[in-house]
């Protein structure tokens, strides 16, 4: 991987009253990398993400995205990032094409809704109202809406929470396609299988600090080196493999 720096976070801090939610974290992400931020609830993942997205003020420290400082040039940063919220919602009585048009307009761009909807396999739903979409379809529409302006960095906050296995697999494929375009993807998740499969590197956060940062393979390797063994020998397949094998990979909506 050619190591062009895409995102740099230096000594980032955030207080909420007395509580220090983010305690001076630092990391760098290369262009085209899928970077996972893992951690239990309240670890400071969302706060970190929001500071990087210019949605929340930064107490101290610095975030540089594609060479632009988030603190001083918030609007310029917003023009080159795409943000996928945790539970995407859209105004009702709006067609999918109109939602895409609306997001394009928010960036001042005239876009081609059908092309974007085709990319996320929603072309057949183009004329429907948003309230008729399933959870997975809303996630995909949300991704299309976040890509209207060809962002260089793409933030996804727990994108697969609440989706069925087919929709999750489909979303992982989509994330892979986005990465292939050279987009840097930053993703938070509670699902370790998702992180292991998807992410080039992961940062594990707890209590506002990064307690581990490496590729999933290395993290597992170093744990094993410490002499860790699981109680039970891991099967060559798991229940999800059974489920997908029986029900197929095709999307259900």
């Amino acid at each position, binding site marked *: 991987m050619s190591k062009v720096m895409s995102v740099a976070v230096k000594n980032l801090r955030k207080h909420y009253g007395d509580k220090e939610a983010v305690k001076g974290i630092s990391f760098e992400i290369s262009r085209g990398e899928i970077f996972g931020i893992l951690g239990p609830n309240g670890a400071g993942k969302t706060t970190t993400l929001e500071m990087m*997205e210019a*949605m929340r003020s930064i107490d101290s420290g610095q975030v540089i995205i594609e060479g632009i400082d988030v603190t001083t040039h918030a*609007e310029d940063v*917003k*023009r080159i*990032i795409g*943000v996928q*919220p945790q*539970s*995407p*919602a*859209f*105004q*009702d*009585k*709006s067609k999918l094409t*109109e939602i895409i*048009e*609306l*997001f*394009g*307009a*928010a*960036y*001042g*761009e*005239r*876009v*081609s*809704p*059908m*092309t974007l909807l085709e990319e996320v396999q929603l072309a057949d739903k183009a004329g429907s109202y948003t309230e008729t979409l399933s959870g997975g379809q809303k996630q995909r529409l949300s991704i299309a809406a976040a890509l209207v302006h*060809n962002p260089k960095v793409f933030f996804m906050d727990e994108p697969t929470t609440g989706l069925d296995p087919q929709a999750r697999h489909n979303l992982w494929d989509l994330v892979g396609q986005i990465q292939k375009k050279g987009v840097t993807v930053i993703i938070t998740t509670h699902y370790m299988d998702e992180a292991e499969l998807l992410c080039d590197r992961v940062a594990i956060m707890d209590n506002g600090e990064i307690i581990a940062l490496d590729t999933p393979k290395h993290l597992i390797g170093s744990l094993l080196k410490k002499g860790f063994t699981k109680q039970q020998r891991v099967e060559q397949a798991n229940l999800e493999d059974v489920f997908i094998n029986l029900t197929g990979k095709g999307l259900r909506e």
Partner: protein
Amino acid sequence: MRVIIVVVVALIIVRLAYWAKSRYWHPKEQASPQYSKAMTPWQKKFFTVSVFTRLNTRRFFRDRLAIFFGILFPLIFLFVFGGIYGSSNNNVTIDAGVINRSSSRIASEFISNAKSAKVIKVDKSVTTLMAAENKMIRGQLDATIVLPPSFGVVASHQTYPSGQAEVYYTNNSSQAGQTLVSVLEAEFQGLNAKYVPVTTPFTAVGKELNQKSLTEFDYIFSGLLGFSIIGIGIFGPINVFPELKKQGILRRFHTTPIKVWQYFVSMAASQAIIGLISLAVMFIVAISVFHIKVIGNYAEIAIFLVFGIVMILGIGLAIGGWARNERQAAPLGNIVVFPMMFLSGTFFPRYLMPDWLQHISSYLPLTPIIDGARLLTTGGQSLTQIGSQLGAMAAWLIIIYVIAFRVFRWE
């Protein structure tokens, strides 16, 4: 009535055309319009506003509940208040049948005079007294004038023509009948003077002032326009914003470069379009059903009302934009709206209030809108003559929008 039919037909045609277009006409998407036309930064900013305005307006007309509250709800009030105040019609007309049994020239002249008289509305289908009586019994006619065969004929011992018109009426329509008798007597006085010289030392003459007195309904109508503006400008946003915030829809927009002013301008433009349509419907109903006489210039009225909508919308944007959820928006909205609604003259005219209350209520933001709307529509004034109202509205506009911009929150 004709106006309503034309408008309804026009709306149906537009709707059908729109439906047909969306159903049968699928334009080919341009190959790659992503970065097709280079726009200047300002063009981009207004492109944002125009798309948001267009899609926002379109959504309104897909939402039956919004249409009900935005357009039909004020109409219901209009019908209720119009029913109470609108029926006090000063121009009395009498529906009368005229049966002419005389062949004299005077009789036919008299008939044609009667037909052009303002007070009498002649039912031409009635030709016999029998038919007239049946119609009077059914209440379709108030009275019937009968000219006997001798009417207008010069009798053998006289040098001038004479005659007696008979006015028939039922027990229930005696008032109309008596009125018709005195109308005819007044008419005959002129006729008599032509044949027999008479001197009339004492006379009375009516002089119409070149002024229009406003009816109570004129006041009510402008008040209802104000009520409708509140519905569109305040109740709209304070119901919609908490929902948009709850679902994170506004927050999502905040991740894009869109600015608060762009969002506000697009809201103002679409609410102005919706408001103008809603108010136009009210005008059509008021004119065609309640016979309100609009003497103002429609372009001026429209400009003034748009100004009013945009100003009042600022209150909705401030409350809805500040509130984090409906528990904050609803009470604050009611605190602001209800005093304004009752004190600014929406449901009853301000001149009925004690002086001190009139004085206080003149400072409310809605008052100059209602007063100005009345002065423009039925008061015979033009935009240049209502400077004090426009000034008050401009002052409120600045105050309201400064607050709205300061308190706005995306989530």
